[in-house]
């Protein structure tokens, strides 16, 4: 990851930690070491200090070697594409759609569609291969989960 991306992420973690520390303080304030908010405050306090240390280091690294950063605009797009490639975004979208479809279509149809579409997306085609893998996966899941493990499927 580039130095700018490291810096941005470290800053986000620090901001999130401070927000959580504020929320933790709101649980019971400084009521005592055995209060409900003590351990949450300690944990988020450590998070805040640690993320501040990470941010400070990221700033120092960036100051030492900032020359190799690409120009804004095209550079930012390229960095985002490296962090969030289209395959990842597609897979995440399919994941969310799959979970939403579970209650509407049922487990096996939703799983068949998810596995098939995911393999087609990642392989850039090969729908028959994808469908065959999906059928084999469903057969394996039925055998493993409904008979061997006896778990409740979504």
């Amino acid at each position: 990851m580039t130095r700018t991306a490291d810096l941005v992420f470290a800053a986000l973690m620090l901001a999130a930690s401070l927000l959580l520390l504020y929320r933790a303080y709101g649980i019971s304030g400084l009521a005592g070491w055995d209060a409900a908010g003590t351990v949450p405050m300690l944990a988020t306090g450590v998070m805040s200090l640690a993320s501040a240390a990470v941010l400070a280091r990221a700033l120092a690294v960036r100051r030492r070697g900032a020359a190799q950063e690409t120009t804004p605009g095209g550079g930012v797009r390229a960095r985002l594409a490296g962090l969030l490639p289209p395959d990842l975004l597609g897979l995440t979208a399919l994941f969310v759609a799959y979970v939403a479809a579970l209650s509407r279509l049922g487990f096996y149809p939703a799983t068949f569609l998810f596995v098939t579409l995911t393999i087609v997306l990642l392989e850039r085609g090969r729908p028959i291969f994808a469908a065959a893998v999906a059928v084999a996966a469903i057969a394996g899941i039925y055998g493993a989960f409904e008979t061997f493990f006896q778990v409740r499927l979504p």
Partner: protein
Amino acid sequence: MTGDMLGHFFMGWTDPALLGVCALGVFAGIFVGAIPGLSVTMAVSILISFTFAWDVNMALALMVGVFCGGVYGGSRAAILLNIPGAPSAVASAFDGYPLAQRGEAGQAIGLATVMSVLGGLTGVLVLALAAPALSQLALQFAQRDYMLLALIGLLLVASLSAGSTAKGLFAGALGVAIGTVGMDPMTAQHRFTFDNVYLLGGVHFVVAMIGFFGVAEALYQIHALRAPIVKQNVGKVIPGFSAVRRHTPLAMRASGIGAFIGMLPGAGGDIASLLAYGHARNSVKSPTRPFGEGAYEGVVAPEAANNAAVGGAFIPMLTLGIPGDAVTAVIIGALFIHGMQPGPLLLENSPHLFWFMVGNLVLANVFLLIFGLMGVRAFTRIVEIPRTVLLPLIIVLSIVGTYTINSNLYDVYLMLGFGVLGYFFKTFGYPVGPIILGVILGPLLERSLRRTVQSVRGDAGEFVLVFVTNPISLVLATAFVVMALAQTPLAPALRRGLGALARRWRR
């Protein structure tokens, strides 16, 4: 008593169902460990929920098998592809891959298998001898001592993780914070619920585990999707007796290192294998080849150590309820789910469970030897499975595993959230292991802290006094303070000061 002990030790060996499940676990573990991108922790996290309906012995037999098989299986991809299948196999690639490049992959795998079994059995022996003794000692531990052990475990895992200590501490503290979500068990106050009714019940640790270890890894593997799959030819595997005899002394020393490191809360096979590799480099004067160019000693030492660490990791897990590494953190969760409470009373109240696990670990190592030496071609094919097929299957398994906990789809969405967060953590070099240790150790830490404070009625002076007047607490508190200071910029100054003191003392 001895008859009962032996009966429980051999229970897994004589019951066909338990025998079969252990074998299945080892086979599946080698499969999972051999594939870069799948981790043993991921597999065991998902398996926990699948084995809800099972008897506790069956569930443990499967998970122990997967653990042992997975730690060993990581060496396959390390030797064949120079891509460790598990973190504990990193050191095995240093000399294993050069051996494969010379056409000696079979010999490397064969020797790795035998030495893994030797290390594994050594670790189990240490477990069988040390755990009962430590369990007796642990009966004298007070709540404050458990608090210190939890802090030491979190600090160790943070400082020993890949990436900076600050990132490790952040991850550990995040895990503790996640463990506090929901209603406070003592006062019922809402903590980090953000006015969401669903979060009142807290975050189930299995949801966090599957999210951070399963989904996050699957998402991260997107970056390696187009990596070419290298086909390997593996020849003769079963090592000669002279090779085994030559390398056994090193394997035994490495096993000792592995078992000791595995015992440390928060440290596991990855640290053990690297330390053992370093020991081999320093102690072996005439290796088969220079280290880094295909020395068999460079495979023997880490493989013996990482499997010995498995037995070592079970020691604090069973006797103190403190995980030795991420996988034993997951196994602690499995024991909770089945109504068991790991800790010093486990050996008092349920010695049958302890001896059953010891027997099962030995059995798992026997299956490791069989599958490792006989199943080479099958496992070589395994590393050739395309990631485009693996990723959707991992996600389906993760969803099923998560849904099984509470039959609630909100858990699945939360798991996805953890998975996305875990992806960013991996991308930016934050370790994920400390998060899970934090989730498991956080409640123990909080419970111990609050009980200690209540026992001294909130008196700050008395709170400090109890840590210095009790010998066990004093040792643990000193260890924690020293370890904490070692992570700060004061460490070099402290070392110089202590060195000067030591020199003055010697005069």
